[in-house]
């Protein structure tokens, strides 16, 4: 019981600290860094009007709205 405690402690500590450090690496882009995300090629839908109509139909069929992303180009301004 004693023999394994140190090794397990070290392994656990490394695992916990390592995984937590991993969280810090993936910060979401800041509002002024979304230039590439705002490009038309980055949109899920190619046609804005088509997407809007489809969303409208979906919303009415589903009886609930929202959850389909943020308003606007993701710049956090609407």
């Amino acid at each position, binding site marked *: *019981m004693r023999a*394994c*405690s140190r090794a*397990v*402690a070290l392994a*656990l*500590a490394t695992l*916990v*600290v390592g995984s*937590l*450090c991993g*969280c*810090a690496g993936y*910060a979401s882009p*800041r*509002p*002024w*860094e*979304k*230039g590439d995300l*705002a*490009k038309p090629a980055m949109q899920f839908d190619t046609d804005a009007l088509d997407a809007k109509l489809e969303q409208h139909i979906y919303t009415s069929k589903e009886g609930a709205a929202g959850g389909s992303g943020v308003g*606007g*180009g993701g*710049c*956090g*301004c*609407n």
Partner: protein
Amino acid sequence: MFSRHGPLQAMRCAFPIRSRVMPLVRLVLLVLCCHAAIVSAVGVGETPPHFGLLDGKGDLVSLEHLRGRVVYVDFWASWCGPCRRSFPWMNELQRRYGERGLTIIGVNVDKRRPDADRFLSQVPADFTIVFDAAGVTPSAWGVAGMPSSYLVDAQGKVAAVETGFADERKSAMEARIQKLLDAR
């Protein structure tokens, strides 16, 4: 049910060291929380962080040099739709209140300068434009969205902060600017 060296045994084995690991875990969590808190936004009544950027001609524009004037700092990017709509309004403001002591500074945050130049050729700006491709200033000011505007009074304190651009807020902002110009 479990053998002597089974998973339960290993867990029991690990249990006593929790007291030594926990402070470390708490420290890491604290650091992560601080990481998120570092980007604190500039609030009303505060003196904004240092602002010194180059304009298109390579001249330094700094808020310290503009003390005594009312300054409207607007963070914009070529890819931002509302920014495009805000430019004619800012041109109008600069034209109307420039002589009374208003300076409008548009801070471009595009990573690629040609993008900004193309935007400016389509939507001309009759006010000062500075460039911050590295995003140092928006980071220091804690810009929350694009565009973001900060109204800085003659004493160099932030009088108003606005995120986004909406037509219905234009008149309120203009009234604020007029008030600051009168108080100058």
